[in-house]
């Protein structure tokens, strides 16, 4: 434990390209990507469940890879391309995973669903799941 500073450090200009749109935010260094999305940009599709990397509700894609936004500092992702649940639909058509969740009634309360869908999109991009057991294992970061 070092000397903890009590004065606020400078805000750090941070550019995030979210769902194809560039945003520049002045952020305190401890702002997580999850809080930047929800509290600074009103993109509340990404959910806060545990806030500790355990539930996957906050899953987004950074440069195409699925990650937990609750354990990501936004300032560390300056210039990154971020896709959230709000960015998966294209030209008014739902992403096939979104449509599949509706068709198969794959919700209970729905709170974890955006994270599930973003995680599944990451899983498909990785191309490592070839059978049901592998899908189960590679989706285990959600709930």
């Amino acid at each position, binding site marked *: 434990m070092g000397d903890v500073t009590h004065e606020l450090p400078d805000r750090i200009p941070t550019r995030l390209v979210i769902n194809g749109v560039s945003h520049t935010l002045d952020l305190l260094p*401890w702002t997580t990507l999850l809080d930047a999305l929800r509290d600074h940009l009103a993109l509340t599709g990404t959910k806060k469940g545990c806030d500790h990397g355990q539930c996957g509700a906050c899953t987004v894609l950074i440069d195409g890879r699925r990650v*937990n936004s609750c354990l*990501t500092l936004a300032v560390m992702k300056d210039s990154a391309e971020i896709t959230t649940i709000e960015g998966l639909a294209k030209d008014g058509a739902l992403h096939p995973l979104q449509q599949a969740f509706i068709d198969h009634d794959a919700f209970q309360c729905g709170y974890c669903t955006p994270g599930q869908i973003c995680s599944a999109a990451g899983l498909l991009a990785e191309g490592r799941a070839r*059978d049901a057991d592998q899908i189960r*294992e590679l989706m285990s970061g959600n709930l």
Partner: protein
Amino acid sequence: MNNFRYSRASDIADAIRLLAPDPGAKLIAGGTNLIDLMKENVERPSRLIDISRLPLREIVETPDGGLRIGALVPNSDLAYHPLIEQRYPLLASAILAGASAQLRNMASVGGNLMQRTRCPYFYDTATPCNKRSLGSGCSAIDGLNRNHAILGTSNSCIATNPSDMSVALAALGALVHIAGPNGERTIALTDFHRLPDDKPHLDTNLGSGEIIIAVELPPHSFARNYSYLKIRDRMSYAFALVSVAAALELEGNAISGARVALGGVAHKPWRSLEAEAALRGQAATPDHFGHAADLLLQGASARSHNGFKIELARRAVVRTLMQATNATPQSQAHKKIA
């Protein structure tokens, strides 16, 4: 989280320079362990030094036929790298047994080696813990210690190291390359993590101003007869109660070389050269494996709730060595234990 300052290191020398003047400064790579602990107020750095953009993401072959892995290679990229899948499948398997797909995408090799214990008292700032606050006492010794260590403990701390990757690296005889104010040095992975003795606040032998730059795998890769078996309370996304990394070199059914490392049982990955030597020249049978397991577990001692781990570890060692013998490594997706 406490207030802290943020700097982005421009190169390795810059990271070392930024670390030097400030004992409260910490490096951050993937952030998956550090940010979690900062949210719990367990870690309260004065400054974070972001090393995530340093050029330490390469996996290259060494002149002697081994591999050098940059400290910032994400865990998922390492596990899925063709040279790792083909030549060091034990390492790939151990990595895929840990955390989740999202976390493995974020977690770095260096951060994985440095991840801190999952002892619940370490996380709970309302309870005494020598690792968090030296001299305050250890709540686990007379508390809930079901998942605590059975080997190499001290009266100060009975925590375990939670890394799966490190268990495979220990078995493979990996080296850790470190840079610091006095230049570079290399230490064996088995000497990188410490036992708690009377200094449980120190997890590793990394100096406070130093940075891990790479992990090196020696040429001998045990690509055929290996297995990583992780026993946990649920099938996925949980830390090990006990895990075993086993690798054999066989001539027919005779063992010419053996490596066994245990995870979840000590403050560091646990190996015994005596146990491995006892296997050389023997037939690969459950009896011989049981004898080696006894040697590996020599001196194991239980606290009130973790006695089951001793027998669990013994059986897991035998089972994992049989999987290695039969070239039927444990699948990390299909959970049935062969």
